[in-house]
């Protein structure tokens, strides 16, 4: 009889342990996902900034064809009329 009780206690203890471990892991997972979402938002903003900066650069280069007075500014950021400093590959989302 005592042996049967031992089995019950063992199973209950094991279940309690597993439930606690799963609960802890779930909390950790939720935190990780939250930080992952935040980082995803940041990389989206980075990607958007790079795209807009390239667009601005292209507009400035177009403008420089009409008004070369902007050329020193373009050259100061290391821009030739072919390539720009912002022409870095966009990060993977």
């Amino acid at each position, binding site marked *: 009889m005592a042996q049967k009780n031992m089995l019950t206690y063992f199973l209950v203890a094991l279940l309690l342990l597993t439930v606690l471990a799963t609960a802890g892991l779930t909390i950790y997972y939720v935190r990780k996902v939250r930080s*992952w979402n935040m*980082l995803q938002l940041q990389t989206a903003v980075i990607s958007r*900034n790079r795209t807009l900066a390239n667009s601005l650069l292209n507009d400035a280069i177009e403008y420089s064809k009409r008004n070369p007075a902007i050329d020193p*500014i373009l050259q100061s950021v290391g821009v030739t009329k072919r390539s720009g400093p*912002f022409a870095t590959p966009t990060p993977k989302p």
Partner: protein
Amino acid sequence: MSDSSSPLFPPSPAGPEVTLESLVADYQALRNAFHLTLVGLLILTGSLFVFFLREVSLARRQVVELSQVVADYEKSGFAARLENFRVQLQSFTQTHPDFNPIYSRYFGTSSVSQPSPAPRSGPASNLTGPRLPPTPGR
């Protein structure tokens, strides 16, 4: 209160006789059912644990990758160069007002006190306000 006289629990004269052996058998069956339930719950929570373990591993890897991307961006000085470029363009706009529409389209209104012409038609022309924040995620 006597249960034997209660109308809720009437004595069952036609029912089987409750013996000690039948009680022991029922108890054993109940214990077996309880053990079976415990084992089922163990399997369920164990599977859930393994599932979350895999998900956590995946999420951790992705967090590391994205952190690397953000760190590279901050290390590259892109925001500082962009801000420098913006300042130069702003001062250029003051001497060349015809550049104002382009400047306003990307950075909002400039400090030049003159009416800005209508924005150029295009997919980005309906955006208002500053469109290039200096640094993301701060």
